[in-house]
């Protein structure tokens, strides 16, 4: 895909058949939160929301992530009809029901996980991504069920499952139901494992709590985007427990690589190509025809 094409509005079709337009950036210029460089928005888009100056990976939405990851027009959404219910009539300072409505309005999504089947460089995959801005990407019953359906779709078609995580963990408003999604999602992956269907877990910023302590760690290959926060407990909780300041870089991707938890750290701009190659090898397919990265580097 050329940089010019990447500027075009997305054309990924959903099961509903509607096409979505990318949210329009507020201004033409934006600032990198890491190196404070002033960036030209179209340039930043071309770099998939990675700062061209310092390589800082900014958070991106689930739908945009999948649009970028899958081959154009190849995506077909899974589990759109699975939507959340407030089974416990949970209420804290706000009602869960109201929080859901608010999150749905803000994100245009029904819940925090979006799954699609499609291709990456013509290699068939089922890909799922978390919408972090939907209640912190928290995992409740819908996330668990959609993940299972995506996994089952991968199992049926014997194509790889890829999941991009960005989640604070289990959704407290669904109480124990949310905890049980950890068991449910891990169990379905056991089936993929038995069947020899690959699962690639891509950990992005941030992945903690119940998502980190379940399927996100169960990839045949676990990869992380640079400098993503990944851990079981959040840094604040740990700080309160050990009562000392945490070392620089603690719980970042590089720390996980050093401690043997992830296989590799992959730049977002290389993700499509690298994963397509890995999946093709795991599935015993011919190497995909991969375009050189120079297209976007220039």
């Amino acid at each position, binding site marked *: 895909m050329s940089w010019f094409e990447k500027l075009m509005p997305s054309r990924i079709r959903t099961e509903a058949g509607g096409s979505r337009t990318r949210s329009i950036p507020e201004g033409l210029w934006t600032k990198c939160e890491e190196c404070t460089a002033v960036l030209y928005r179209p340039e930043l888009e071309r770099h998939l929301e990675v700062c061209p100056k310092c390589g800082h990976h900014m958070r991106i939405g689930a739908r945009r992530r999948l649009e970028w990851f899958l081959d154009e027009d190849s995506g077909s959404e899974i589990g759109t009809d699975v939507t959340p219910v407030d089974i416990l009539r949970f209420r804290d300072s706000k009602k869960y029901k109201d929080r859901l409505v608010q999150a749905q309005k803000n994100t245009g999504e029904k819940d925090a996980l979006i799954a699609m089947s499609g291709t990456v460089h013509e290699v068939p995959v089922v890909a799922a991504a978390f919408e972090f801005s939907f209640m912190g990407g928290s995992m409740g019953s819908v996330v668990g069920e959609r993940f299972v359906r995506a996994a089952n779709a991968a199992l049926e078609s014997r194509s790889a499952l890829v999941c991009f995580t960005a989640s604070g963990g289990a959704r407290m408003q669904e109480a124990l*139901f949310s905890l049980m999604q950890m068991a449910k999602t891990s169990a379905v992956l056991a089936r993929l494992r038995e069947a020899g269907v690959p699962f690639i877990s891509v950990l992005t910023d941030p992945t903690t709590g119940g998502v980190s302590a379940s399927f996100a760690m169960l990839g045949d290959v676990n990869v992380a985007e640079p400098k993503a926060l990944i851990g079981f407990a959040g840094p604040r909780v740990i700080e309160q*427990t050990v009562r000392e300041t945490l070392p620089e870089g603690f*719980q970042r991707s590089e720390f996980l690589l050093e401690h043997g938890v992830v296989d590799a750290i992959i730049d977002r701009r290389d993700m499509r190509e690298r994963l397509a190659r890995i999946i093709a090898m795991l599935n015993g397919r011919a190497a995909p025809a991969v375009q050189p990265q120079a297209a976007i580097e220039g």
Partner: protein
Amino acid sequence: MSLNFLEFERPIAELEAKIDELRYVGDDADVNISEEIARLQAKSRQLTEQIFSSLTPWQIAQLARHPQRPYTLDYAERLFTDFEELHGDRSFADDPAIVGGLARYRGEPVMVIGQQKGRDTREKIRRNFGMPRPEGYRKAERLMEMAERFRMPVLTFIDTPGAYPGVDAEERGQSEAIAHNLQVMSRLRTPIVCTVIGEGGSGGALAIGVGDRVLMLQYSTYSVISPEGCASILWKDSEQAPAAAEAMGINAERLRELGLVDEVITEPLGGVHRDWSAAAQALDGVLHEQLTALRALSTEDLVAQRYERLMGLGRFRE
């Protein structure tokens, strides 16, 4: 053993103190006060029944953490014979926050695994307050695989505030250790019965909690986050823990109604900490019944039913 009374048990505590006082008087005076003692004891019993008939989830949470509540090894001593504790994860260390080993249950070999809290300060620290590190979960996983190889059922006992949130635990892959157990337990080719005996604290509890049957003692709790944690995040005030406990529905009866727990084991009046042997007996009855039912299944059916059960977890609209 003198009982530690909780705040909401104060009226009972006062009555019990009066009874003790009378007993003391009775020892050196000539008057016959046994009648009076009997009357007060009956009253104390009645009061306990009354207070315990309408406990709030927050009060139950306090009972679940009661310092005199029996822990895994206390049940092991009463339920099993020939208990041989097995140590270590074979690659890093032995974690005293999780105990496990071979034992005989009514004569048959079983694998026992559970979180273990400490009773006194030294022991509490050694057991890390029942908060396991990755090596604890990896030891548990090793023992489960062994149980599968030697065809013995796995009985787990859950009692933890949660997996340990520390720097070393993160370094050694706490997340991966838990996740791996969830996967292994979902497919293990031998019966697994999990019992929450005290605190069922989140992922740290679930990591030994995936099974064919999930049982809970009447005054134990099981939740995705502690009431205090939930309150401090959602209410921005940990003092709201009672409200959070209520909202999450962390107690056994509620979770059974929701279909997340199979059976609730009735505790002796006033809670299991008042009578450890009665507690073990109550657990024994249910455990035996459930295990007998599971042993009757073929391995294929067992694993298929467990899988179905896991896939059925969750509520959504479609």
